[in-house]
């Protein structure tokens, strides 16, 4: 009897691979959402919320002032880029296709180096949609889509390889994922790289992809190891942007 039951489960898993994940996720999702809401401060007292609201309004005012300055710089940037014939419409269209999604489960506690976000087929997400952390930092892609949630495979997952340009000299290198948002790359020691240098992925976006966190150099070796990390802490992510490909 139990053997028939096990065979039935295996058959369901083979022919309908999303059945059990969808079932388990639909049961777990209310718990994850409750945890997310508690983390977002939904259970705070009204007085505390009002005070926080006031504080946020002040911060918003300050941010608006900074935003106006940034817009002026952006306009100047667009003007300069237009001199080189770069089409800016493509960038603005891409921005419009991004959807904000809450992060329900972050890496660190799981043996799988992934995020689980609130939003799946119901929001039109598909496999390989790009995932951005706040600040337009590319961190991964959707690897599995369920009815109401999606699993995000991080580019930093162990063994993942991605082409990057490192530092002011734009040195081309292969960044290898080490898990937990960390990467490593190897470059000749003659290339001058130092901690804090920016890393970009030209094939995908010209936004910052990571920052050099350390350079390990051995005088006996011709190559030095560059350790990279995204400019955001993926263990503290609460929201991500999903971009449709």
């Amino acid at each position, binding site marked *: 009897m139990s053997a028939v039951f096990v065979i039935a489960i295996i058959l369901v898993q083979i022919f309908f691979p999303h059945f059990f994940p969808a079932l388990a996720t639909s049961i777990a999702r209310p718990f994850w959402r409750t945890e997310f809401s508690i983390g977002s401060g939904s259970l705070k007292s009204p007085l505390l919320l009002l005070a926080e609201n006031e504080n946020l309004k002040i911060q918003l005012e300050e941010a608006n002032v900074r935003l106006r300055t940034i817009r002026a710089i952006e306009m100047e940037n667009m003007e300069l880029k237009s001199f080189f014939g770069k089409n800016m419409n493509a960038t603005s269209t891409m921005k419009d296709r991004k959807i904000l999604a809450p992060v329900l489960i972050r890496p660190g506690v799981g*043996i799988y180096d992934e995020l689980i976000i609130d939003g799946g087929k119901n929001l039109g997400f598909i496999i390989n949609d790009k995932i951005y952390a706040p600040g337009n930092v590319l961190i991964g892609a959707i690897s599995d889509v369920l009815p109401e949630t999606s699993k995000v495979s991080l580019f930093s997952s162990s063994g993942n390889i991605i082409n990057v340009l490192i530092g002011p000299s734009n040195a081309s290198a292969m960044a290898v994922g080490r898990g937990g948002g960390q990467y490593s790359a190897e470059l000749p020691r003659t290339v001058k790289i130092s901690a804090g240098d920016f890393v970009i992925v030209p094939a995908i976006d010209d936004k910052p992809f990571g920052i050099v966190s350390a350079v390990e150099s051995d005088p006996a070796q011709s190559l030095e190891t560059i350790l990279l990390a995204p400019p955001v802490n993926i263990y503290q992510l609460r929201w991500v942007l999903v971009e449709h490909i």
Partner: protein
Amino acid sequence: MKLRITTNLIVLIAIIHGWWFIALPLVIIGCWFFPYYIEIMIGGFIYDALFGTTSGTGLMAYSGIIISIVIFAGIIVIKQNIRK
């Protein structure tokens, strides 16, 4: 029986939140103290269903169930040898 159900509930909560470092010691203890503790495999299956990726990771996507079967079988063998 009550202890077994309580253990299972704690394990289920830990699995739902992805706290494998809480669930794993509990199921190992459960496997040792309770007879035929098949809940360990159900737990592994639920963990994979929640966090394992269905598309394209091969056996890695079944880490939970594989680990639980190894623990279940291992503890049965150890128990049989000790209690002979």
